[in-house]
């Protein structure tokens, strides 16, 4: 038993191929905001893509931050529940405490080039052991039973999911 505290990070990619209603709204609203905020940096410059603009104007990196309010309402709608990640029973088992929005690519002429990512950082979980391909984890915010029994979940790491931080033996 390790009993190390870990924080998962799930980097959710959203682009023109994203199909769920939530993803589509994030896609459309972040693209609209990108086109608006882009004009704060592009005036007089012949650029159309995020990559070109950042290359020529490094301060355009602030667009990550400036575009992010366009999706903050959609983050709230998740009510703190980590999207897309399920335990071995097929149930949600993680909450997220924080997130970060980033532009990957975009082009003011072409919505299909628009690609963004939202990194969700989970609440702290206790990683007790690894069983086969699964991590045995528990939520330290859930109190143990009277006899010390902890409720646990088994989770298999997936693409775009990483362990963001580790605190040994809490």
């Amino acid at each position, binding site marked *: 038993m390790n009993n190390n505290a870990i924080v998962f990070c799930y980097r*959710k*990619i*959203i*682009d023109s*191929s*994203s*199909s769920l*209603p*939530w993803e589509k*709204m994030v896609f459309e*609203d972040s693209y*609209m*905001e990108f*086109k*608006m905020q882009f*004009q*704060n940096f592009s*005036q007089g410059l012949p650029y159309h893509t995020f990559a070109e603009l950042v290359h020529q104007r490094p301060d355009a990196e*602030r667009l*990550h*931050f400036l575009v*992010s*309010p*366009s999706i*903050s*309402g*959609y*983050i*709230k*709608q*998740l*009510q*703190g*529940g980590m999207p*897309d990640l*399920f*335990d*071995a*029973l*097929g*149930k*949600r088992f993680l909450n*997220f*405490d*924080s*997130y*970060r929005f980033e532009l990957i690519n975009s082009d003011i002429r072409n919505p299909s080039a628009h690609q963004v990512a939202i*990194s969700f*950082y989970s609440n702290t979980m206790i990683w007790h052991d690894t069983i086969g*391909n699964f991590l045995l984890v528990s939520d330290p915010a859930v109190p143990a039973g009277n006899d010390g029994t902890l409720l646990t979940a088994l989770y*298999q790491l*997936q*693409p*775009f*999911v990483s362990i*963001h931080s580790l605190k040994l033996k809490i």
Partner: protein
Amino acid sequence: MVGAISTPVLWEACKKDSATAISTETVSNSGSGTSSTTCAVAPTETEGPFPTKTPSGYVRSDITDGRTGYKMTAKLTIANVNNNCAALAGVIVDVWHCDAEGNYSEYGGSGMQSTNYQSVHFLRGRQVTDASGLVTFTSIFPGWYSGRATHIHVHVYNASGTSLKVTQIAFPEGSGSAVAIVNGYSKGMSGYTTNANDNVFSDDTTKLEIATVTGSIAAGFDLSIKINVPG
């Protein structure tokens, strides 16, 4: 029964005119779904929460977000130079300015970010002009930072988000002005850049960019300005 259920699926897959069977286009972006690449259990959760279309977090009139400072109400009237400077209704107005210490909201350096984006984006807001071309924001009187006179950034867009004007609002200065009364908050005014020496405002010889500012520390300040844009 199992066979009867499976038949349509097999039939569908074997149909020669199936669009998916004909296409030879290779998928270059398989999306973010993880189900096809891992042996994870398929989700079996009740659907929801159901997403609804939500306006940008910028859309709000009070942009204070708990920043401390002297209250300031800013009234911006947008007018159309292409229509005898008549009021321009229905245009989008973004404003942003620094806090009492002279700092803007921005991402921190680390990869972690608080969930409270309202406060992270402090002193930034968006409103749409009413029939008289007016938008009103509640905020705090801006501080200042090295190299710049006190100012508020403004970006006016048409309803579809195309930029009409990027500009900045300057403040009256000198004895009895709000800038003098606020006196740079705790920073004082040593090293302050006046409008005449400001690289943005120094060419504004007709003082079009300078707002009218009234009020007091006790009652709060009222800023008003008319901004003409090519609507």
